[in-house]
């Protein structure tokens, strides 16, 4: 094993070993020193409640921004910009990487583009299929016939399977498509600086003012090429039809992204987002062998621009499908796998630290801060629910008569119970906000569903139990053991 590979393996082991170290230390402590363990649990619980309250406040702020900007006429604002910031020179390149997605999944996404307020003669759409998908060419033909005339450019690409150095990842497909689009853009004499690329999941339906909003922010941002532009992902396409379990999970995911949009120094791209095409070409496209292409592209640009790269939050939504299946159990499995794939973003840690070690220009403090944030967020994800749900009661269960006769043994359940009563207030805020981001109820859905959609929040403890930390711990353990995850796209509808 060469030096670089050895270093990478060490870095891959770090997140998982820290998470497991925390969990096992607390379990051992609960057995050997239950009082010390109880003290740590109380500190953690208190920290967690303060953190939840803080993050919920950020969520309310993000919500306020989202709804404050909802009815804004972004195109009018683009028009009002001075001539040196001419919006009409901008082209939007939209790539939809697809694998095994049927035309009925892609059609609403393309329809949403057609409904956009932004001029379609300034839009280039690329449907990026995988050549290994036997239905790809037929599906491409159907969609091409329907939409080819609606946009300035409409390309269909077929990513060959098994190219040297590539994995079967979305990033590899998107990179292939972006290179094909580059040829098209070059052939039309369009400058790369004037193209904004959006890489959308196949089921992504952008809000009609998304591209106008994106153009405005691109034109008004300082150093627009040194930024990615992140909309708020919501899962509204089928939210009224989805089962409670999946709906709550996806609403929570949207909320987490809204919270992240308020923490700019930690904000990283996620799922569907946009960036300068010039930047994409300069940094060498998406990595072709990593699963978490959506976040690693940010880190790639961050390293390329020596730390001078940021994510600009866009308070417009892009809507996707809730992932669910035909039965409750299958839905849990599907959601678990999707969250584990998201948690596989922990592979960014070795990527980033390796990049930092090769870099001589980014300030050390900045490197430590960003590296720590990345590590801390993944470790916290992997341990918090396990500490709260499983380790919390452990001192009482294994501490025996000695612990139970101690004051802390008596007070522990009372204090943790009382502390978590405070979270009811934050839960209430989440419930209210969840109602406001819902699309209007389809006619075929009865009004009683409204009641269910409030009552279903009662299953949050179960969701925390199943999906709170385990997918993240699973992903970190796999990375730690070198069992690399293949890219498994989540089939959203079954």
């Amino acid at each position, binding site marked *: 094993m060469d030096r670089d590979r050895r270093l990478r393996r060490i870095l891959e082991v770090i997140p998982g070993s820290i998470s497991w170290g925390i969990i096992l230390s607390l379990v051992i402590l609960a057995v050997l020193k239950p*009082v010390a363990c*109880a*003290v740590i649990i*109380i*500190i953690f619980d*208190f*920290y967690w409640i*303060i*953190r939840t*309250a*803080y993050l919920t*406040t*950020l969520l309310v*702020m993000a919500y306020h*921004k989202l709804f404050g900007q909802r009815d804004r006429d972004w195109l009018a604002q683009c028009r009002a910009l001075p001539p040196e910031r001419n919006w009409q020179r901008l082209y939007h390149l939209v790539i939809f990487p697809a694998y095994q997605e049927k035309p009925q999944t892609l059609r609403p996404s393309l329809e949403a583009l057609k409904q956009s307020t932004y001029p379609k003669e300034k839009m280039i759409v690329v449907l990026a299929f995988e050549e290994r998908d036997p239905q790809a060419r037929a599906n491409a033909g159907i969609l091409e016939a329907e939409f080819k005339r609606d946009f300035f450019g409409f390309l269909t690409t077929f990513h060959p399977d098994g190219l040297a150095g590539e994995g079967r990842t979305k990033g590899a497909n998107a990179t292939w498509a972006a290179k094909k689009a580059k040829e098209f853009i070059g052939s039309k004499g369009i400058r790369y600086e004037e193209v904004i690329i959006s890489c959308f999941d196949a089921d992504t339906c952008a809000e009609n003012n998304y591209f106008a909003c994106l153009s405005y922010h691109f034109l008004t941002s300082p150093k627009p090429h040194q930024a990615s532009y992140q909309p708020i992902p919501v899962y509204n396409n089928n939210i009224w039809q989805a089962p409670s379990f999946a709906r709550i999970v996806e609403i929570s995911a949207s909320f987490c992204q809204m919270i992240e949009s*308020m*923490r*700019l120094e930690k904000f990283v791209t996620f799922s569907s987002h946009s960036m300068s095409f010039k930047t994409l070409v300069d940094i060498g496209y998406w990595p072709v062998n990593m699963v978490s292409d959506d976040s690693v592209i940010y880190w790639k640009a961050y390293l390329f621009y020596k730390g001078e790269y940021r994510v600009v939050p866009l308070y417009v939504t892009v809507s996707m499908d809730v992932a669910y299946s035909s039965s409750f159990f299958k839905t849990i499995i599907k959601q678990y796998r999707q969250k584990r794939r998201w948690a596989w973003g922990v592979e960014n840690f070795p990527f980033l630290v390796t990049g930092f070690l090769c870099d001589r220009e980014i300030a050390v403090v900045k490197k430590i801060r960003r590296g720590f944030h990345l590590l801390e967020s993944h470790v916290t994800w992997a341990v918090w629910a396990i500490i709260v749900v499983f380790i919390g009661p452990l001192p009482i269960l294994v501490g025996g008569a000695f612990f*139970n*006769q*101690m*004051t*802390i*043994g*008596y*007070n*522990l359940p009372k*204090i943790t119970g009382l502390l978590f009563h405070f979270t009811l207030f934050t839960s209430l805020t989440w419930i209210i906000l969840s109602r406001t981001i819902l699309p209007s109820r389809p006619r075929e859905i009865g009004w009683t569903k409204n009641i269910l959609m409030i009552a279903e929040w009662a299953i949050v403890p179960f969701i925390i139990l199943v999906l709170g930390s385990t997918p993240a711990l699973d992903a970190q353990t796999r990375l730690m053991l070198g069992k690399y995850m293949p890219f498994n796209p989540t089939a959203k509808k079954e």
Partner: protein
Amino acid sequence: MHYKEQKIRFVLYWLSVLVFLMGLPSILSYALGYKFNTRTLRFTKTGLIALKSQPAGANIYFEKKLFKDKTPATINELLPGAYHIKVALEDYYPWVMQVAVEAGKVARFEKIILFPIRPNIEKLSNESSLSFWIDDKRDSIYYVSQENNSIYKSELDTQDYRKVSDFPHGVSAPIKWRLSPDGEKLLCFDLHQLLLVPLRPQSTAASGETKVLPLDVMQGTIVDVFWHSDSYHIIVVTDKNIEALEAMRSSKPVTLVSLNKNSTCAFYDVRADILYFLDSQLAGDGKIYDNIYRLDLNSRFDPFRELMKLRTNGQGQKVKKNP
């Protein structure tokens, strides 16, 4: 725009940190039982008393003064020492205790039962009763009426008695009752006689009278009688042997074990059909030892099945004892 929000966020962040840093010492000191003494400016380790009573809502008198909370309650931040505690509720006997409190520990009194001064006694039968029995499922009560020699049955939570059987004149009062597991037969026995009383109403309907069947016991004085789980076989323990017989007229008992000890005692586990009993055995050193034995009478257990077959020949077989 972003600047303003980031400024608000900055304030919120540090406010959260402040709340955490200020709140944590209070929470931890409370959890660990520390009390801050404002005079000495020092933390003192205290203990607490936890009280829970049945019924709840009783007044607590701490050092003869009424405490603010009613049971269940916790009296916190107590310096080590002895405290007089009284838990009182109107119409109940009070619970009084001198409680020793240790630093950092909890004195738990969470099983206090306050007994009523006037117990809640309810009359369940309207006639003079000779004896009664409650079935194993705890949902029916049977009693023998002394006046008309009948057996009555009622649900435990009602007084809706109905006659289930006659109890013939001239039979001396039984000392013990055993209801069969299926609830359809009753065994009444004293030292010398064993009676089988069918409880099914239809058995009385045909003849107008319940047929109480006296069962034969081979020899000796009856010590105890048990139903087999099949509600058909009866295990009789006498001072001379252990017998099995069927719950029917002219059933011939089979001797399962001949006992050496006259005053044995026995327990029957009806779930597993195992009889535990006491008996004497002459050991190799010439001394007699009393030991506990178990006899497996599960119908799946071959010896019992074989013994039951032997009944037809009127033969007995002694089961080998495992010391």
